[in-house]
């Protein structure tokens, strides 16, 4: 048995797995990613799922997907469109047809392609028999039946047997990507551990899929993606939420503080809470509060008593926390607020991505209430910015809002594991017991932070609170001039953070025709588009902002180097609005998209070329 397939060497390949919410597509996706990482591919992944838990089987509303982009070259996004689509039923096919490349390989479970399923998926005609699949390499695999046949011997009931179908798919892909099936076996052993029968059944199905792929005509061409260039070291596949949680744990350890998370579950931020709840062994405490307000308030309480205090949420939760963020601002207590953005307004599109909480983060509070705002830009660098958020909060005695988004949070990429000794030091401005010079609102002359005297410390008893306080002494004060001084102090303290953050790095030439400006989670798409265009010789560069407030000190100088500037955001133009006000001297073009989706590289390139060719209508 066996054939000698034609092997095509590829720089990168995008695979999309799609099926019912219960079909295990997320698992097959992870398995494929892990194997890719193991053999040294670069990678980027993104799951996409409905806001219902198990919307009715076979309907488009119930389709759950997982996209994996692997590369010999460096990959920075999960890919615009797929080279390979696995569609477990007609609904999965229907939902994904517009996201695959011309000529793509489409593997379907032919056992689910019948009239009943077509109807459920809302097809009017049989898609296999009209011309809608013309030009694709359609592989009609009897996945369900072959799986059941294989699983039978293990005595699984049909429901459980069907749950192993994803291993049939996995097996096919091992073959399709010329991979050692042992990797798949190892994955299963690890996954099902002590459940021996399940390990065996899944392995058998895995092999069945592999063998099936080897046999059939339609898969005569296979892919080979070599290990990534220019990456070396120990890696792991990290999602943004995991990276955020770990960055906070690392910061706590570096600062010599215990981590306290006060939070309330909300999509897409919940995994951070879930992860910290598992890290009691590192001394971390996760307090699942009764609501978002109690989440942040418990964290503020913990901060008052000397913990590295964090609260995590998404847009609607950030809205609820507004009042309490103001309390952290006026009491000048360190606090990290992680906001994993999702589609708004209101409940909006809870499982989709968006960057539309920027203004809320900057200004969603009563009074003059400045806070530091920073944003992560890739799944893995959520680790670094969570770490930085904690460092800035603690060292500058202020709340810091860290913005990530659904795309970063659930997406993943390869992460070169650092040693904590190589991370920056974190030095909380603590006070010695019985320090007689201590006063609650005495400030460090450099950073302008006040100092952190911790309940339980001898000789430092003091009181904080939401009423305006007298400069230095911290007594309640209604004095007009004092209020002016304190408002100004709080503002200056945050502005001074600019001295402690890195300068903007320009990707590309420091001067040129067009500067692409991004912030936060759009980095992957923007860098791909910009570097692609740079290779074609266009004069285009990119800056991606991670520090939003205050802005890096060289911002104005960077802007000055270009003839045109375009701000690209997954919102209606919030950062552009902010920049216009701060840099009135420059014109900012905009590219905005509010569809619950990340940018596609193709659309970006088209846009940039249009501008570079001068066909662009300003701020349309």
């Amino acid at each position: 048995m066996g054939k000698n397939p034609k092997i095509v060497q590829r720089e990168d390949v995008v695979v999309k797995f799609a099926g019912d919410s219960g079909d295990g597509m997320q698992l097959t996706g992870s398995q494929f990613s892990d194997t890719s990482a193991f053999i040294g591919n670069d990678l980027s992944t993104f799951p996409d799922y409905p806001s219902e838990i198990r919307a009715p089987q076979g309907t488009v509303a119930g389709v759950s997907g997982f996209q994996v982009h692997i590369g010999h070259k460096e990959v920075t996004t999960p890919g615009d469109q797929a080279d390979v689509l696995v569609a477990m039923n007609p609904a999965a096919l229907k939902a994904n047809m517009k996201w695959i490349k011309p000529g793509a390989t489409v593997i379907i479970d032919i056992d689910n392609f019948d009239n009943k399923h077509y109807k459920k998926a809302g097809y009017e005609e049989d898609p296999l028999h009209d011309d809608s699949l013309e030009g694709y390499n359609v592989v009609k695999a009897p996945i369900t039946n072959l799986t059941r046949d294989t699983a039978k011997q293990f005595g699984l009931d049909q429901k459980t047997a069907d749950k192993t179908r994803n291993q049939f798919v996995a097996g096919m892909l091992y073959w399709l990507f010329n991979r050692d099936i042992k990797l798949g076996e190892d994955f299963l052993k690890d996954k099902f551990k002590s459940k021996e029968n399940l390990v065996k059944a899944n392995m058998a199905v895995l092999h069945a899929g592999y063998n099936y792929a080897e046999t059939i005509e339609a898969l005569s061409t296979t892919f080979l993606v070599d290990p990534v260039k220019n990456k070396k070291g120990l890696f792991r596949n990290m999602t943004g939420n995991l990276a955020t949680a770990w960055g906070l744990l690392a910061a706590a350890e570096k600062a010599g503080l215990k981590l306290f998370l006060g939070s309330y579950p909300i999509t897409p931020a919940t995994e951070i809470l879930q992860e910290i709840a598992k890290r009691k062994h590192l001394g971390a405490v996760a307090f699942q509060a009764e609501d978002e307000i109690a989440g942040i308030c418990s964290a503020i309480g913990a901060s008052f008593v000397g913990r590295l205090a964090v609260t995590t949420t998404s847009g609607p939760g950030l809205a609820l926390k507004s009042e309490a963020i103001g309390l952290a601002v006026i009491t000048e207590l360190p606090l990290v607020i992680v906001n994993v953005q999702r589609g708004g307004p209101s409940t909006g599109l809870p499982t989709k991505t968006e960057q539309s909480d920027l203004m809320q983060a900057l200004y969603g509070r009563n009074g003059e209430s400045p806070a530091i705002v920073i944003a992560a830009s890739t799944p893995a660098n959520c680790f670094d910015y969570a770490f930085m958020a904690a460092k800035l909060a603690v060292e500058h005695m202020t709340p810091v809002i860290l913005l990530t988004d659904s795309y970063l949070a659930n997406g993943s990429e390869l992460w070169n594991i650092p040693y904590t000794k190589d991370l920056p030091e974190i030095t909380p401005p603590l006070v010695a017991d019985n320090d007689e010079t201590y006063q609650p609102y005495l400030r460090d002359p450099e950073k302008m932070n006040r100092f952190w005297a911790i309940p339980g410390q001898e000789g430092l008893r003091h009181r904080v609170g939401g009423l305006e306080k007298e400069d230095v002494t911290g007594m309640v004060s209604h004095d007009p001039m004092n209020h002016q001084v304190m408002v100004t102090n709080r503002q200056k303290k945050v502005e001074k953070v600019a001295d402690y953050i890195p300068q903007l790095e320009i990707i590309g030439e420091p001067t040129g025709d067009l500067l692409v400006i991004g912030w936060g989670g759009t980095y992957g798409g923007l860098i791909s588009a910009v570097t692609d265009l740079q290779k074609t010789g266009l004069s285009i560069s990119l800056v991606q902002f991670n520090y939003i407030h205050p802005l890096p000190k060289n911002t104005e100088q960077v802007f000055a180097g270009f003839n045109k500037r375009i701000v690209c955001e997954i919102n209606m133009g919030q950062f552009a609005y902010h920049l216009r006000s701060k840099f009135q001297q420059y014109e900012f073009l905009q590219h905005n998209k509010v569809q619950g989706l990340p940018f596609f590289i193709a659309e970006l390139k088209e846009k940039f070329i249009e501008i570079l060719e001068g066909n662009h209508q300003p701020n349309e």
Partner: protein
Amino acid sequence: MAEGKIETGTLTRQDFKLDTTVKWCAGCGAHAVLSTIMNALPETGVKKENVVFVSGIGCSSRFPYYINAYGFHSLHGRASAIASGVKTANPNLSVWVMTGDGDSMAIGGNHFIHIIRRNINVNIILFNNKIYGLTKGQYSPTTPKGSITKTSPDGTIENPFQPGELTMGAQGTFFARVVDSDPKMMKDTILKAAAHRGTSVVEVLLNCVIFANDVHKSITGKDVRDDHQIFLRHGEPMIFGKERNKGIRYNCNKMEVVTIGENGITEKDLIVHDATDPDDSTHYNLVRMGLPEFPVAMGVVRAAESTVFESLMHDQVQEAQKKTKLKTVDDLLRSGNTFRIDDE
């Protein structure tokens, strides 16, 4: 002696005195609470630097500014939430929530019932003046039905909460009631609250001289107080009255007031107060008991044992730390699926 504990008698009231102007109205019941707590603290055996007062917003919530301790005057309604963080983060601290009926029963109702449910070991002192004082006289969730206030020109139409009843409904392990005009009763009770492991709720029937003067008069009035209050003592029969000849007994499953010496009633027939009964049915009856049929229950109604949230939390932490192989973040980062990539 437990961490953070010292011999009682080491400290005095002076140790908690702050050199500041107390800005409550003259005659406000809050002054008595401040004074009583300053007297009680030295007897709790807590180091002075371990005492933390957390409050919300309201006249009563200005409390932390008037006492020499660590203090946090927070947001309206949020004292219990902040205190939950304080105590969970550092169980060695002695944490006090100073709050009003508006602060804890209106905007803060949710945090109030949740801290009680979790049984976090803090002491909640509820200044129940049955009015919003600081905002100048609107009705609160404890205002007696029919009251005319600034926002109820035609009389309120809402059924008031009974803080004790709500506490029981939320799984409360400790509830006590005192009046502002009886410092002995207050101190005695507050010390019991401090000693209780779990959330202690102490309702202070407090007089707001400006906006709800005499709202508790039918209970606290000098002429009526002995007949209209029953001071509960654990292990003692429920006796009250100027003549100390009235008592409470169960007539099958309903409580009733009886007179000792009448109809053959003796002390033996009376209910012996068991504050520690895990079953709170009697406590529930006691907190709801009221005029004119019954006296109002004072002192510690309930003080039952249960697990304490922050203790269990730290047990889990210690257990996890003991069992883990991942001792540091570096260990964590390298655990599970990692992949070594060697540059070609």
